[in-house]
């Protein structure tokens, strides 16, 4: 039997391994919400009741997928992440906390909240309660949304560096962290390593408001940012140009530290698709984003064996030729419920040129609201669509959210293993 690393490698080379590789938690866009993670671990008898799960991403409230869960579900991938969070506090100094659903969680020391009179929870940049709050979880909610703290500005006063405050050359300690983590996972597991660099994304709308900054300057309002992609194009281009220079230095230093132990680099999480079509025109993508995406992909392909991973929700059919031309090897999350994202059509038109990572089951309807039988049915259908010829790593469409029934999560992975063996049984999924 093939090991996980080889399985993922072959799949991403567009060859059929022994079975479709599975991912859970190797990135912050293929992970699982802490509430659901807790219930999953309990259902699998991995923990005594009341044992907390660890929060590794406080914006989407994602939990750490540990080796015992990876083994229990026969997952083939593992995450290599940094030391920080979107809210600017580090992943250290763990303390106990409970979600609104009552899930026991270990959160970083900088995860400092304050309750509002209406019960909402506020979260603070760099954990500093004396700064204006940058995150809000509504009372009874499951996620922290970013609070927009736009300072008034005049166009003539806008400076490129104002929107770059959160991007800097990684410290030696950060690089050493990546090196140590990659070495540990490479030597102690047979899993494919996924390097998480989504924080380097150009214009990721969840990061534009600067949730990790105490006093963000520049263009920080979501609507103003989208408008600026058209009205202040030259300014945005300069921001991206400078950010891309910083990213390139970071990438080179990380590569020098982790080498080719890493299989996949998750490079951008900026959403280019809405439910019914792209957020921005293909022309805007080509003018504003693509030159920098191409630059980084070209460098990776010239200097490493990494496969590059782009995450973009929504309907991106109209942009896929451009993503491929920009050099991306992998598309995630493959949101088949969006317009023009039929799995068979995607595979037919683009399957030889890009790998699909995700798309395994719908996150907006089937996984949260369907029965285990419906989950099973859809997973089989997606394997039939994306599996032939390799080029497919199985994961749900995006993170497994809160309130998803554990039986559905288990049905998803069980079915993927059962029906993901090559040669695929391609008869009707019915």
């Amino acid at each position, binding site marked *: 039997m093939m090991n996980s690393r080889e399985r993922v490698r072959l799949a991403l080379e567009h060859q059929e391994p022994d079975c479709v590789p599975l991912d859970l938690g190797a990135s912050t866009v293929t992970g699982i919400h802490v509430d659901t993670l807790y219930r999953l671990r309990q259902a699998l008898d991995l923990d005594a009741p009341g044992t907390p799960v660890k929060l590794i991403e406080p914006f989407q409230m994602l939990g750490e997928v540990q080796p015992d869960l990876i083994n229990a579900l026969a997952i083939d991938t593992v995450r290599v992440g940094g030391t920080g969070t979107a809210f600017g506090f580090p992943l250290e100094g763990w303390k106990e906390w409970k979600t609104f659903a009552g899930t026991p969680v270990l959160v970083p020391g900088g995860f400092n909240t304050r309750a509002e009179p209406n019960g909402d929870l506020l979260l603070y940049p760099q954990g500093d309660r004396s700064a204006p709050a940058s995150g809000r979880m509504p009372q009874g*909610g499951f*996620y922290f949304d970013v609070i927009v703290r736009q300072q008034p500005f005049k166009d003539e006063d806008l400076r490129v560096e104002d929107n770059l405050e959160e991007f800097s050359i990684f410290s030696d300690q950060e690089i050493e962290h990546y090196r140590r983590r990659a070495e540990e996972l490479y030597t102690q597991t047979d899993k494919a390593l996924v390097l998480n660099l989504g924080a380097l994304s150009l214009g990721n709308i969840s990061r534009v408001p600067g949730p990790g900054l105490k006093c963000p300057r520049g263009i920080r309002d979501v*609507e103003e940012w989208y*408008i600026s*992609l058209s009205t202040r194009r030259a300014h945005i281009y300069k921001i991206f140009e400078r950010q891309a220079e910083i990213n390139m230095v970071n990438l080179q230093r990380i590569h020098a530290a982790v080498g080719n132990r890493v299989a996949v680099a998750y490079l951008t999480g900026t959403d280019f698709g809405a*439910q019914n*079509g792209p957020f921005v*025109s293909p022309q805007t993508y080509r003018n504003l984003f693509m030159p920098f995406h191409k630059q980084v992909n070209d460098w990776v392909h010239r200097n490493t064996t990494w496969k590059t991973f782009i995450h973009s929700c929504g309907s991106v059919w109209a942009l896929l030729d451009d993503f491929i031309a920009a050099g991306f090897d992998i598309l995630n999350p493959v949101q088949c419920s969006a317009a023009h994202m039929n799995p068979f059509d995607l595979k037919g038109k683009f399957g030889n040129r890009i790998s699909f990572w995700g798309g395994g089951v719908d996150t907006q*309807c089937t996984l949260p609201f369907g029965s285990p039988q419906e989950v099973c049915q859809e997973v089989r259908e997606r394997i039939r669509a994306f599996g032939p010829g390799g080029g497919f790593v199985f994961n749900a469409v995006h993170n497994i959210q*809160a309130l998803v029934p554990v039986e559905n999560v288990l049905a998803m992975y069980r079915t993927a293993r059962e029906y993901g063996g090559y040669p695929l049984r391609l008869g009707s999924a019915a």
Partner: protein
Amino acid sequence: MTQFEELQQAIIDGKAPVSKALTEKMLKEGIRPGEFFPKAIIPAMDEVGRRMRECEFFIPEVLIAARAARASSDILRPLLVGDEAISSAGTVVCGTVKGDLHDIGKNIVAMMLESAGFKIVDLGVDVSAEKVVDAVRQHQANLVAMSALLTTTMVNMKSVVEALAAAGLRDKVKIMVGGAPVTDAWAHSIGADGYGKDAPAAVELARQLSAA
């Protein structure tokens, strides 16, 4: 090109300073405030909707056009008097449901509805069912438009439908829903009257429901 056509073009092109200046100039020349909506703003935003549906316009272009429309309508609304002040299209109470803080989509729908001549009562985000009921009563709304981005909050749309029924208002308002995870089937399953898959569709739906 007539002045109304010029104003239409300024809105479609997203030139807010131009639409503002033109509106002021035309008012000075004696054009009645009520004429602007049917002759410039509504047709301009219909064209924006068409371009969005046909993938000629994307989110930035729609937002810019909506701002240009608002630059004009903000001047006009306080000047509307008598019959002109009563929205012929209808009054819409809109908001993002309880527990959900996402409002880009809701804001675009609200702006497009406003430009289509509806009076908008925007309750913002994280809106409880009770707040919707109160607003419907206070503003005598004939439409409720609810948005949700999350699978964890879309269930709260059902609470809005139930609260309106419990308050005896269900037959006085039509309820429309939208947002990324929402579907036509979902809308029907919770007893809503319709689903708008995007902003232009929401405007079309609001027109149909208002006329029904």
